[in-house]
């Protein structure tokens, strides 16, 4: 199955994607590969705006019919926006993982962490293992 892995995003080995919105804020979601693995996403639990997370901490819950998955903060920082649309339409993560299915926006507390994320090519390699 062909995977959609946009070149301009950064990735984690736990299948989150990260997009620079501006110098200090990133948008975060789950990858096309992750949504395909889960299929049938039926519920999303989002964190409160203002909450701070360290990189790697559990930040959201995404539930498919078959399973409950934790989504980890790919970078440290403060939640500045959440995608409220997902509360009524969690299936947008399936239909549009990289745009309408975004999860949260994080204000970076350490910009250098961006450099530790995977680029598209490395993420692609990870999936082919």
């Amino acid at each position, binding site marked *: 199955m062909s995977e959609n892995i946009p070149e301009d995003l950064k990735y984690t080995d736990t299948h989150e994607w990260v997009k620079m919105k501006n110098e200090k804020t990133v948008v975060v979601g789950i990858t096309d590969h992750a949504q395909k693995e889960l*299929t049938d996403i*039926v*519920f999303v639990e989002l964190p409160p705006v203002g909450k701070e997370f360290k990189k790697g901490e559990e930040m959201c819950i995404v539930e498919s*019919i*078959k399973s409950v998955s934790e989504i980890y903060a790919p970078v440290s920082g403060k939640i500045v926006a959440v995608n409220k649309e997902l509360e009524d339409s969690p299936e947008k993560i399936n239909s549009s993982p990289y745009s309408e299915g975004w999860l949260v926006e994080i204000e970076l507390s350490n910009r250098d962490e961006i450099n530790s994320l995977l680029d598209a090519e490395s993420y692609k390699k990870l999936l082919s293992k």
Partner: protein
Amino acid sequence: MIFLPLRSPLHEIHVELGAKFTIFAGHEMPLQYTSIRDEHLNVRKNVGLFDVSHMGNVIIEGKDAARLLSLATLEDANRIEKNKGQYTAILREDGTIIDDTIFLHLPDEKYALVPNAGRSEVVTNWLNDVAEKNNLDAKAEDVSREYVILAIQGPKSRDLLRKIIDIDIENMPLFGCDYAKVNGVDCIASRTGYTGELGFELQITPPENSKKVFYDILNVGKEFNVKPIGLGARDTLRLEKCFLLAGNEFEGGRTPLEAGLSWLINWDHDFIGKNALLRQKQDGKYERLTCLECIDKGIPRHSYMVEKNGKIVGKVSSGNISPCLNKGIALAYIKPEYREVGSILDIVIRDKKIRAKVVKPPFVSKDWARENP
């Protein structure tokens, strides 16, 4: 020692059809082919084909076969005529359920029993022990590895099957059964299932023969929009109808009174576990399986606690989203004083509580597809 999961004789076909797999009771079976939701709705609205070869097959023979089944199940098997079947349960002396099962009274006097996945050996040994202790001329044989069971379920299942089966399924009643040929392949056909829809099951031996039948059903069924259906949708379909899943609803030992199966108990005959059930019935203070429909957003799941005013009153045995209702639904064992229809309880999901209402079974009525075209 490594225990490898058993694979269905149809495994390669499932791979070819793009299935994702899951391990269920020691069997590697299709979880889904496309999407659990799509597969679920296709069974409610059209027709679906399931490989349920993980289910067991036990044949019971001998002149006392009916007496054995009467003693070992909630039903008086003498009441069940040839070409008819019965859904029932097999109990221990203490009234707890060993397995729930369907037995079919075949036209040649034999009985075909379908235990749950991974339960046929336990059930077979139990039945043979009961036969021996009671000097009955009856023998149970576990033939699970020699059969594949295919289920054809959904409002269009009869229209599909009519085209390839050699018996009159027009007039086959619910739980009816017979020997049949499907495009020349021998099988035991019954009007049974686990979806709450019109549906049929075919027990096919030898297993190899099931491949042709599987393909024939997919080909002939094109005009009815047939789709292969995995265990994911099988689970949500049965949950919407409040059918029990042995591993979930019988966990820890449950009696038919607790599991909401009192309607199956034929009190007018003697059976193993009857005295224990009579005592429990008189006492009355036992948890009962209860249907909860979520008011707030959230997905209840197996083993989540249920509370009333902060006090634990029960536990979810099965839960998920209902693809038809688009709401969380759950079966939960609840203390008797908290389960009145209309009561509002809290289901604890991680660090949150969501409200759920006690409702009458089933969650999804038989008219749902007609009312939601």
